[in-house]
């Protein structure tokens, strides 16, 4: 196992300096994620206008993987249409859990590529949920609007 496969510079950078790390006072959608195994908590905020995501942000605390994953997620999802965002989630989830490649439309390939450093978790089964926590919260927010409950990574 080479740790640098997991903790690539881009991961460490996003973990130390997470992007869009704040609440959104005018969020139209939000959801809380909690991994009870490690205590990681994340809240994902979204402002959805018409059929696209105008803004995404997050708050919370967690390990380097979960923080970097949430941070990268906010960057790649901003500006996407709802169907594109859902496709990104499905594709990312498959890559880090089963290793399956789900092709995304040509416009999204570059964004999907930005998530590649996170796929190092596949060889660390205990850490996969760290990478997916914020994404599950995003998915729940997308589907449920302002979500009061807490999303688990199951």
């Amino acid at each position: 196992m080479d740790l640098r496969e997991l903790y690539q510079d881009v991961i460490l950078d996003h973990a130390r300096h997470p992007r869009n790390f704040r609440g959104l006072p005018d969020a139209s959608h939000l959801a809380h994620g909690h991994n009870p195994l490690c205590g990681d908590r994340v809240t994902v905020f979204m402002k959805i206008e018409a059929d696209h995501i105008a803004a995404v942000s997050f708050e919370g605390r967690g390990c380097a993987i979960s923080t970097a994953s949430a941070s990268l997620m906010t960057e790649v999802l901003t500006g996407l249409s709802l169907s594109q965002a859902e496709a990104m989630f499905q594709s990312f989830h498959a890559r880090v859990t089963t290793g399956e490649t789900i092709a995304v439309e040509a416009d999204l390939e570059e964004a999907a590529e930005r998530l590649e450093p996170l796929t190092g978790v596949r060889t660390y089964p205990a850490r996969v949920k760290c990478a997916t926590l914020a994404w599950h919260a995003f998915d729940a927010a997308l589907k449920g609007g302002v979500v009061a409950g807490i999303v688990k990574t199951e």
Partner: protein
Amino acid sequence: MNASIDIAAAFDPIALRREFPIFARNPGLVFLDTAASAQKPRTVIEGIADYYSSDYANVHRGVYRLSARSTERFEQARHTVRRFVNAADDSEIVFVRGATEGINLVARSWGTTFPRSGDEVIISEMEHHSNIVPWQFLRDQIGIRLRIAPIGADGGLDLDAFAALLSERTKLVAMTHVANVTGHILPVRDVIRLAHAKGAKVLLDGCQALPRIPVDVRELDCDFYVFSGHKLYGPTGIGGLYAKRAILDSMPPWQGGGDMIETVTFEKSTFQPPPARFEAGTPDISGAIGLDLAINFIESIGREAIFAHERALTKHAVERLAGIPGVRVVAAGAQRVGAVSFTVDGLHPHDLATVLDTHNVAVRAGHHCAQPLMDRLGLDATTRASFGVYSDETDIDALVAAVEAARQIFGV
């Protein structure tokens, strides 16, 4: 120089490690998660196979000699546990799946019989979930009040605050003997003395204590003592509940089935005296035999020697860890044995545990089944290193080197 130091000097973890096949099969393994479950000595692993090959049949049933032999070995295991904790009689030892089942048994049987609505059960802030949730069930079922004895500034039990909680309403104090997160040794003699003065019974969770501290339940005068075999170098699925015979006699059965009855008609059944009353169904026979072998293994090393070794090693670990910049030892000032929890500034315990794993250092990271304690300490998680008879200073060296490597990777 006192005697315990002489014993510690003679203690040889490296020789003991050769008795544990896991280390030969996993070269370089630095196992620092014994508080979660201990590794198994060869005598336990091979002894269980030997029992199945030589003496196996169901217990307490057959007229044939093989069943009698199996029963004899099972009851011999009970006798060994009795000796190990110095109970007065074999009938005071009930075999259970582990400490969790032992606590649930007491809550369901004793707890629903004696306390009344408004009576109080006191637990500490340091409890494992297994000594919290069964009492919450009892609270919701019969309306007892659950009181929480807090930790003090040093991270150990605040004895004065505990004493202030005691009253005539207190029916039970259920407390850990050694805290699983911090390794803190609770002042259980004081706890028992104060509780008894108010007429309350005392249950001790001995999961972390029994493998490390010589325990004499009669000298302690506790009313209940529970433990898990798998933390005692024995197999999973077996554990023990000690209770004073008069208390066991007063308790109704909690599970019905074979072995616990005297007579059964469709109208009515009558029940065996303890311990059979609390052991419905075919027990974990091989587990009990493995536990017997594990206890014999521990006794062959010497319990005072183990205590001295683990106390010295834990102290050494605290000192070494505290010397690393950014490392904070949880409850650093508390009396402890066997475990040390710590955090590293800027480094999440799960990231740390992953780095440690790549250095072959196995530790536990998370809330250690003690979320209320974590909340109290204002922590989401910690990293815990814990020790066994096979642990030595080279394990601490490896831990410290791996923590330093993690600090380098994360630049903290």
